[in-house]
């Protein structure tokens, strides 16, 4: 099972950027429905959150199920950052037409935008240090400590989504629940141990991770 996935990393980047390219293409073709700007903006934000959560899934996946996708973790994290950057660009350029005073007011006054911005600001140093040279320069311990900030970014991103909506529709709640679950398995290692034992009893003889 562990040997099964040997997709080149480059393919992950390329495939990961397809939704952005496709959505933008649909927008140019006037195929994004009545509110194309909003749809594009939302789609980019959603993919950012999805990649962020996928990134957080890698480590529990290995520990619980023995599926090792570690070699793709950096790609997923960077994709989350690229989508956040595209999402922010769509917000600045298309949604607000570079109306900087309005954008500034929005960021300062609207908690959900402030929180989204905070998530983005956190992702910047993480993206900037997602390369081997940076890991060497920082040293593994400092690098790992810095990258713990990804949990904060995930919490902020999920909160950002929850704060946008009217009433309580399912989608942001599901993403918030997924975020909470991925953080819980880290905060409470016993959850992981139980999960692994359960997995082992189902798949006897599975090699240890």
């Amino acid at each position, binding site marked *: 099972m562990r040997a099964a996935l040997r997709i080149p990393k480059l393919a992950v980047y390329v495939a990961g950027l397809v939704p952005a390219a496709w959505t933008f293409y649909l927008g*140019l073709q006037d195929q994004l429905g*009545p*509110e194309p700007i909003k749809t594009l903006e939302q789609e980019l934000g959603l993919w950012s959150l999805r990649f962020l959560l996928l990134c957080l899934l890698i480590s529990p996946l290995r520990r619980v199920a023995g599926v090792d996708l570690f070699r793709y973790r950096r790609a997923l994290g960077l994709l989350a950052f690229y989508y956040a950057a595209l999402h922010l660009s769509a917000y600045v350029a*298309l949604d607000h037409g570079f109306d900087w005073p309005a954008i500034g007011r929005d960021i300062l006054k609207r908690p959900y935008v402030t929180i989204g911005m905070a998530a983005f600001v956190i992702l910047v140093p993480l993206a900037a240090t997602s390369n081997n040279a940076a890991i060497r320069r920082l040293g593994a311990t400092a690098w790992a400590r810095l990258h713990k900030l990804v949990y904060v970014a995930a919490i902020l991103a999920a909160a950002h989504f929850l704060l946008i909506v009217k009433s*309580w529709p399912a989608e942001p709640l599901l993403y918030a629940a997924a975020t909470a679950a991925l953080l819980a398995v880290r905060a409470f290692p016993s959850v992981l141990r139980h999960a692994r034992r359960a997995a082992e009893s189902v798949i006897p003889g599975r090699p240890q991770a």
Partner: protein
Amino acid sequence: MRASRSFFLPEAQMLIRHSPDIAPSEITPRSLYLRRREFLAGFGASLAFAGAAQATPLAATRSPFSTSEPKTPRTDVLAYNNFYEFGGRKSDPADNAHTLTTKPWKVRIDGLVAKPADFLLEDLIEPHALEERVYRMRCVEGWSMVIPWIGVQLSEILKRAEPLGSAKYVAFETLVRPEEMPGQKGLLQLLPWPYVEGLRLDEALHPLTILAVGLYGETLPNQNGAPLRLVVPWKYGFKGIKSIVRISLVETQPKTSWNIQNPREYGFYSNVNPNVDHPRWSQATERRIGEGGLFAKRRPTLMYNGYADQVASLYGGMDLERYF
């Protein structure tokens, strides 16, 4: 109970002062009037058929209250709706609302009126002349449309019930029918049902306030609130309660659904106001649906959605930050 007072005449006269001058050419010519009677008969007949919703053409006279701005494409008006009885996404009503049966449709008018009654929709509408009103519609979420509604002035209908002097507000209620409204059942229900709305009596009697039975020349599509909905063009769209089954005249300010759901964010008045932001987003600008694709610009939101000349006097001296 006290007998009804002749409540309407002074009120109506007061309101006429706010309305724009009606050009002589706007007065309906006799031939058109007669034709309209035929179509009205058609309206009644079409509504009398029980069964699935079928868009039926409606004839209506043009109204001087109409804006001449370009109309939002019909496909967008029918595809992009907030109607939480059918789900929380904008596309849900168009996808799900076909299950709603609107024939027969009964509307109860009760409360502080001399003549409470249950009406069949056709009996409620048929005595009145249908008008086409092309109105701006501003959603509280920051988008807007221009929609050619067909309907009758709410004041005309209320008049028939003869409101008592004690009536100060009008309360409206939407159908509750979970078998046909998927948003009204299941785990995650977005609002308490029935959806309820309300207006001050003077707002309800204002000539801009209509009960719509159609749009774009046809009976209302289900997703737009068939068969009968409220349209109050100077208020945020959610005040325009859909699929109305009850209209009650009451003495105290009625509860309204979004205000119940989140009183900090949605007030009873909910007049369009670019200077009073929603707690979570600015109301200073809006995006007009169907305008310019990916590179469209926002446009400034107008006070009372551009109807300030007609309605600002209703709110003279009121603190609009407080009564949002």
